[in-house]
């Protein structure tokens, strides 16, 4: 974990409402494992003070890139950043995704910025399996070509049918699941909470492994404030686990979902 004043190298529209922000951050870039994130202090956030976490889309010795969508105060005040401006970031943070199990068929399931969060994992995995990407429209499904180039069998679904199957990720995933050697499946999931829950439920019901990257509001990002906790099963009940430090990636069976 390092803190670095990163220089903006690139910042422009990526696809639809999503923007890409590339940062020069050598000390952080070189440490990144797939599924980790950075905690970014947003200049121009005015009287709002907290950092915002962003999954690392790409990383190398030079720095890191993130994909984000302006949805609220923080992300909207990021849009004026121009090449040359400095942003203070902390990272890499979180546990990231584990190594794939021996002889497993890796499956990616993602929505929104989840695609970005899974890109490094998709690259790292030796076996390239199937990638189920869901979104409202074609615009919301990021990096399809990149995943294909890596050798993944990409199966998009969109609510409006503008790309791939019309419907939710599960509408593509469930029928596909029937024809699989289920115990051999290993899912890597990152997306909105309903998608995470849906995949977690299936993992438990059908008995396969699913690594879920949880999205919780964060304050410190380093495990100190106990803001980002979720309930994790223990032998004799449950304990709080911090998404920023013990996560954000948990196996479906560890998680106790809140109603």
């Amino acid at each position, binding site marked *: 974990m390092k803190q670095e004043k990163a220089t903006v190298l690139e910042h422009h529209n990526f696809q639809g409402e999503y923007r890409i922000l590339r940062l020069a951050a050598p000390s952080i870039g070189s440490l990144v494992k797939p599924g980790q994130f950075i905690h970014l202090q947003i200049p121009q956030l005015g009287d709002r003070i*907290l950092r915002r976490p962003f999954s690392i889309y790409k990383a190398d010795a030079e720095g890191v890139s993130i994909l984000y969508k302006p949805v609220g105060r923080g992300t909207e005040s990021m849009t004026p950043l121009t090449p040359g401006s400095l942003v203070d970031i902390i990272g890499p943070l979180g546990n990231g995704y584990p190594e794939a199990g021996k002889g497993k068929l890796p499956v990616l399931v993602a929505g929104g910025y989840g695609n970005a969060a899974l890109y490094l994992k998709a690259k790292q995995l030796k076996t390239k399996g199937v990638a189920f990407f869901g979104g409202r429209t074609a615009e919301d499904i990021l990096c399809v070509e990149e995943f294909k180039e890596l050798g993944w069998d990409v199966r998009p679904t969109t609510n409006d049918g503008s790309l791939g199957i019309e419907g939710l990720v599960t509408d593509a995933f469930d029928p596909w699941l029937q024809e699989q050697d289920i115990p051999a499946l290993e899912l890597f999931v990152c997306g909105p909470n309903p998608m995470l829950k849906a995949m977690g439920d299936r993992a438990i019901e059908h008995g396969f492994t699913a690594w879920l990257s949880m999205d919780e*509001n964060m304050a*410190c990002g380093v495990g100190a404030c106990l803001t980002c906790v979720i309930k994790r099963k223990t032998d004799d009940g449950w304990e*709080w686990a911090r998404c920023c430090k013990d996560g954000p990636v948990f196996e479906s069976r560890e998680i106790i979902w809140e109603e």
Partner: protein
Amino acid sequence: MSVDLKIKIGSMEMKNPVTVASGTFGYGPEYADLVDLNRLGAITVKGISPEEHIGNPTPRTFETRGGMLNAIGLPGPGAQGFIEKYVPFLKQYDVPVIVNIWGKGMEDYGTVVEMLDAEDTVSAYEINLSCPNVKEGGSAFGTDTDSFSRVVELVRGKTQKPIIPKLAPNVSDIGAFAKAAENCGADAIAIMNSYPAMAINIDTLKPELANRSGGLSGPAIKPIAIKLVWDVAKATKLPIIGMGGIFEPEDAIEFMIAGATSVAVGTANFVDPTTVGRVIDGIEKYLVEKGHRSVADIIGTVKA
């Protein structure tokens, strides 16, 4: 010419006046990658009670204009858990450790000290009588001078180490509590805890915190904290650990001029972990520029 940054809180020596606010720095390890713990005047850890405690449901924090709300609810490993999980880590460093203690009932305050007191690593106790976020105990003890005094006396009876009652800000006469603390043998006063506050989501009609209300911290409350430190300084001779919205060295210096011997950086740790280091450097720089020899030269020097 170099200046002397050393201060004392009772028998506890600090190499500089800067500590961290309980609950904003975990138990030590969390920031060890980013902050040189040996530079700190002291490490103040998150609130510890005799037993393990689960704390509040989520959401536990919420961002507000110029600050944040928290209702963490004092989750923690309990005294024994703290000794097993964190004392070995903290031992490695050459920095005093202030343990923030709390209890559901009055006796707990005595029990937790009994459980911790044998540990040399524990240098002092900050008595949390002001947590806005636990039904039991917490601020109840902090807003009534009688029960406040009883808790402080109880703790005083259990240890030779410095004890530092942390006062609740939401009282009309903070000086009365400071005097009570002094009379009960406290070694210092910590002020302030986060201020009881609330935010409501106007679409869901639900409070933004699962605990409904919480505590306001950050730059927003600094002027309130400065006033309270000034009031306490007028009411007692005890050293004061001042906190509330310290984000820049200038903020810390303002607290010291108001009457604080020591200062604690809290919410700022979340925003910029370099804050504690910058504050230590900034205090030294200020003392040099103003031609002072030691921090004592500025404490309580406000012309008011």
